[in-house]
């Protein structure tokens, strides 16, 4: 008899499957040198450094990885991917884990980043273009009342300079765009 474990895959393989379309090297190549962590400008705001996150993935510590804020704190600056001596692209790993945690529903409901990403995607499906003021509800209350006042003051100044759009722009063939997107993924998964 074949062992019952045949067909099960490790968490690391699961994460690598999420990266199947990327060109980076396999996570098994990681030598834990922490060059990625040193290159990251946002590292001190992450609960696990990029190096730690790769170690956790390799150790199969799925719950810790899915509860982490690391990939939601990534600014996509790609400094880590540039510097990895083994050719791993941690920035793409961050994207993959963000998608995975949205899919599994394990992200922090109070965090701004997942809400922002989904608002953004929904906006584009409605109009075909981004609309900055539409994202305000995702973060405007974060800085408390004084923060909100500062944000509003800036918005008023930008308005005065004609730099804030009052009405969302819209592409002409938005219906076709939606039909296009519906051919690659179910729209109700996003909307």
């Amino acid at each position, binding site marked *: 008899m074949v062992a019952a474990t045949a067909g099960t895959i490790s968490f690391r393989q699961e994460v690598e499957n999420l990266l199947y*379309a990327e060109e980076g090297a396999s996570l098994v190549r990681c030598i834990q040198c922490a060059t990625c962590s040193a290159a990251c400008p946002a590292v001190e705001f992450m609960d696990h450094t990029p190096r730690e996150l790769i170690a956790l993935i390799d150790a199969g510590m799925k719950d810790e990885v899915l509860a982490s804020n690391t990939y939601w704190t990534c*600014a996509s600056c790609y400094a880590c991917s*540039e510097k990895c001596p083994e050719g791993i692209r941690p920035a793409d790993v961050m994207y993959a884990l963000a998608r995975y945690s*949205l899919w599994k529903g394990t992200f922090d409901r109070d965090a701004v980043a997942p809400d922002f*990403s989904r608002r953004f995607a929904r906006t584009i499906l409605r109009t075909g273009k981004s609309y900055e003021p539409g994202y305000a509800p995702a*973060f405007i209350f974060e800085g408390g009342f004084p923060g909100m006042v500062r944000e509003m003051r800036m918005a008023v100044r930008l308005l005065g300079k004609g730099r804030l759009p009052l009405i969302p722009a819209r592409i002409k063939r938005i219906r*076709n765009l939606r039909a*296009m997107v519906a051919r*690659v993924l179910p729209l109700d998964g996003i909307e």
Partner: protein
Amino acid sequence: MTRYAYYPGCSLETMAASYHVSSMEVAHLLGIELEELEDWNCCGATAYSKVDELLATVLCARNLAIAERQGLDIVAPCNACYKNLWTANAAMQRDSDLAEHMNYALEADDLHYDGTVEVTHIMNAFTTDEALESIRAKAGDHIKGLRVAAYYGCQIVRPRRPGVKLAESDAPTYFETLLRAAGANPVPFPYKARCCGAALMVTNRRAAVQMLRDVLQSAVDGGADVIATACPLCQTNLECYQAEVNHAYGTHYAVPVLYFTQLLGLAMGVGARRLGIGKELVSAGQALKRPACVPAQT
């Protein structure tokens, strides 16, 4: 005459309108024709890739297919638009299954993509040997000696494109070459390709404000009168959130942040208003009035 399909991206319609008008002025002076991409849609910024990578790719595929139909290569002024279009293009060119999947989706908008389009950042279109020659010939004394911190940002240099050496993407120099051609004086700026905080300004304010402070301090340490950017998100963070940095750290930054195209336009004698100068929250008036920058009186 060089012609491109011009992909302005969402920010250039309002928040970064001055980047749009100044790009147009400069392109006109350099004999580069920018034909706006017909009915273009958003590139997805960094948010789509966090939601679904096929969603991110299909939206770029549509823009690429429209450019192919127009028979032109794409030029994008925003770092993120450039990176997304470039990445989606490369993915479809090397993966025929993905291209087939995308083409199935594109049928819904009567489009098809064969992978023939090249994606360029507008900075690259303005730093060809020919363009540099033309800028040197046309530049007057308008920004002569102006001390400029050339801020590349991230996605114009990273991920590194094939054939580019790490040293070039780590410490690029073409922006400074361009500024020198226009008569400006680029200052030492070690953080020129370090992240401005990008969308973390929305999603993780504390992190972004600290990242921004580091970049601002690096520019100030170099003695910059003004920071020049090649990306609307970098510009917005560096300029509009300086007050947030000052609030958080008790600093007193007041560095104007202009688009590099505004400086090029000024150098070649275009009027400030036509370049959208005056729409800044941190006024560039004083910096641009420095005695060294005033054109010789006739």
